[in-house]
Structures are given as C-alpha cells and as structure tokens.
C-alpha cells in the first residue's frame, strides 16, 4: 500500500507540490493526470524515493521512506519496478543485459535461469528474440517495452510508469496501454501511471487523480472524471487552451 501525507516540495524557491495526500491500495491501478509541468513526474519520483520532499511523508506498506537514507531505500525499492519516460535503458548493454540487470545483482540464479526469466519477460512485452540488440537499434515503442520488461522481470509488487506513451504514435500508444493492462492483470501488481494521455488514463486507471495547482484537484473513477462538469477538469479533458495561452501561442 502507498500512502502520501501532506507532501510539500519546493524547487529553487518555487513550490511544485503543496499538501499532497492520497492513498493507493494493493493491486489498485491509478492514473495521475495533469498538465505538463504540474509536478506529476516529481510526485511519482517521491513514491520511490528518487526525490525527497521538503516536508510530509511517503509510506510504503506502512514504512515512511522519507526518513530513510539511500542505502535503506534500496531495500524498499526491491518492491518497485519503474518505467521511465525516456525508457532509460543502459546504452552500454544489450537488451538482455538490461533486463537481467536486477536479477544478476540481487538474486543468486544460474545463467540458464536468468536467460529463461529474461526470455519470459521479453515475451510478455512482445519483444521475443531481441535479446542481443542494443538499445540504439530499437524504436521508441520497443525501448518502452524493453524498459517495462526490465521493471517486471523480478516480479515487483508495484510498477510505476512515467509518461509511458509520450512521443509514440496512437497505435503504438494503444499497444503500450494494452501491455500495461496485461502486466496489471497477470502479475496482480499495484500500478501508478503518470500521463497526460487521456486514453491511457481511461484504459489503465481504475482510479484517476488530477494534479492541479500543486495539489490533488480531483480523485475519482475514470467514468466520474470524464463526466465531470468542473471547468478545470473539463478544460484538461477536452484539451482546450485558455485565451491567454492562445494569445501567447499566436505570438510565438
């Protein structure tokens, strides 16, 4: 279970998160939506301890990770898999070495067992047979899939996705959405997806939280969010720029 209590974060004198609180139950799938620069990725990185808040608490299965140092956090992070916006594959390694990284460092397995687990993870993300390719040889969608295989190969309890469909065409985005649902349903993992893609939020999230004005502005089921008449939520869902932004845009 993930619980965030009164989280505050300031970067260079500018507040990014102010009093953010929520709770995500085990096995739940939550989409965090919000405009670019609203602090979604910052919030996600707090959940796994990549960033430390100025105040507040992040509890993972009841343990407050804010009080932990980097070495203590390593133990908690074994519960997590994370897929980055840029995929963040290790470019000096092949796809197989990337996927096997966590297994090699933390589990005492034979090479045969590692190869079997890697092949299984790659098959699950529809990348079977790409073990010997380098990350530079993969397309954007394939990199995201390889990043997902690396995140799930050691069977974590929680998978975090940072903008998983950003920069991908609608067809590849849809395949990534289906993949996230497959991972969620087959591995029974807790899923947290940060996205500004409304289709991803609707398909993957059992609950949608909207981050706006440095706080959780809305927290409801996808059906409720998409039916909302709140002007802020409505504007984001419909993708309508306000007058000031239209003016700024037209003047470059």
């Amino acid at each position, binding site marked *: 279970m993930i619980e965030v209590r009164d989280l505050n974060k300031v970067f260079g004198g500018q507040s990014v998160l102010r009093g953010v609180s929520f709770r995500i139950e085990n096995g739940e799938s939550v989409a965090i939506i919000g405009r670019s620069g609203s602090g979604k990725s910052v919030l996600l*990185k707090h959940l*796994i*301890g*990549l960033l430390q808040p100025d105040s507040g608490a992040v509890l993972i299965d009841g343990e407050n990770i804010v009080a932990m140092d*980097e*070495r203590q*956090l*390593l*133990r908690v*992070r*074994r519960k*997590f*898999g*994370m897929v*980055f*916006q*840029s995929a*963040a*594959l*290790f*470019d*000096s390694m092949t796809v197989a070495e990337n996927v096997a*990284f*966590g297994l090699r*460092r*933390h589990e005492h397995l034979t090479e045969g067992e590692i190869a079997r687990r890697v092949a299984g993870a790659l098959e699950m993300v529809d990348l079977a047979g790409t073990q010997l390719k380098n990350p530079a040889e993969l397309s954007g969608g394939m990199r995201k899939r390889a990043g997902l295989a*690396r*995140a799930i190969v050691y069977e974590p309890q929680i998978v975090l996705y940072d903008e998983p469909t950003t920069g991908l065409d609608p067809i590849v985005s849809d395949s990534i959405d289906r993949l996230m649902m497959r991972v969620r349903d087959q591995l029974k993992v807790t899923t947290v997806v940060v996205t500004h893609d409304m289709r991803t939020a609707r398909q993957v999230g059992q609950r949608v939280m909207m981050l706006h004005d440095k706080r959780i502005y809305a927290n409801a089921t996808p059906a409720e969010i998409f039916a909302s008449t709140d002007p802020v939520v409505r504007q984001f869902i419909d993708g309508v720029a306000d007058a000031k932004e239209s003016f700024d845009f037209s003047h470059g």
Partner: protein
Amino acid sequence: MFNPLANRRVVAALAEFGQIALLARDVTASLLKRRVSVRDLLYQIFFIGIKSQSVVLITGAFTGMVLGTQTYMQFHKVKMDTATLAVVGVSMCSELGPVLTALMVAGRVGAAIAAEIGTMRVTEQIDALRTLATHPVDYLVLPRLIAAHIALPILTLESIIVGILASYFVGVNVLGIEPAYLWENMLKYTHQVDLVIGLIKAFVYGGIIALIGCYKGLTCGLGAEGVGRACTEAVVYSSISILIANFFLTLVMGRLVGLL
C-alpha cells in the same frame, strides 16, 4: 574587506571539496562491505589500464629521451656524461614517471569517466539504477576507483622503464656515451626507494583521477553543456590536484625516508 564574488567562489570550492570527501567516505564504506562486482572491475582495469598503454608509453619514452638529452648537454660541459642516465633514472622514478603518467591518464580517463557517468545522469540511467535497488557508488564509483588504484602504478612502472630505456638508447646511439658506465651509474644512484615513492604517488593519483571524474559525472548539470563542462572540470581539477598532491607527497615521503 574581501570581494564578495571571491568569497562565494571560496565557499563553493570548499563545499565541493567536502562533497568529494563525502563521496570518498561512501566509496570506502562500499569497499569495506565488498560490494564490487569482479566482472565490472575487470572491465574497468581493461578500460583504464590496457587502453591507456599507448599514450603512457609514448609519453614515458619521449620524456626520458628529452630529459636525457638536456642532462647530457649540461653534464658534458663538466665531463660527467656517464651520470646522465642516473639523473634520468631518479627523475623518472620519483617525479616525472608518476606525474606525467597521471596527467595523461587524467586527460584520457578522467574525461571519459565524467562523460559516461554524466550522460547516464542526464538520460535518467542513474535514476534507473537506483530504482533497480543498486547504489550508484557501488556500481559506478567503486569499480573505477579500485581499477584506477591498480592501473596507475602499473602504467607508471611501464612509463619509467620505457623512459629509462629510451634515454639509454639515445645516450648510447645518438649522443655517443659509454654504455657500460652509463648503465652502471644509473643502477648505482637510482635506489629502490625512488621507485617505491613513485609507485605510492601513482596509487594516490589513480584515486584522485577516478574520484574527481566520478564526482563530476554524478553531479553534472543537465544537457550536453552540463556533460561537456563536467568533462573539462574533471580534467582540470584532477590535473591541479595531482600537481598539488605531488608537492605534499614529495615532502612527506622525503622526510619519511630521511632524504630532506
């Protein structure tokens, strides 16, 4: 009384020195708990040691030849031609071998370490490491530090040997010095302690190069400019630190062996 800009620079430099000291503490703790992977260590020894051979050997050879020629030109005036290689031997072992090898490796390896780790930082690969429950110090810093500590003394030894042999070759074949006395005087006046001092210095310089390269990579700014600056600073800071450390090491070890 003091220039505020200068004050800020001094404070920033001291803060950076403190951060490097904290990194040294972390990597020592990591070393004591034996968190290094043998496979990563061997790769780094290959990268830092084997791949630096050519640059170090060329530097050593030409330094030895130039030093031998210059020394001969002065000694020839007082009929001390055969003492030429003794000067080269002592200088190469205790000063020029370790310092020039370290400066060349700082340029090649220090920049490469900062660039590789810096690029990993700006492309979120270091964050990915952390999410895979791997401490960047264990995986990135420790193998490079141990490899540099091992490689630098070996490279320095090679540089010393090649420098002395190259100087001997020039002395005998170009300058026409009597070979038997040249070699004999070198052995007579170059002591084991000179070589030991040089190798201890090389061990220390290896740590300086790896630690500063890793620190600059881990803390580099965002984007291509940040990585470029990290590389430049890694080379400049390592080179200056080596030259400063050389003075203090010479002083301390000189006192220890009773030469001063």
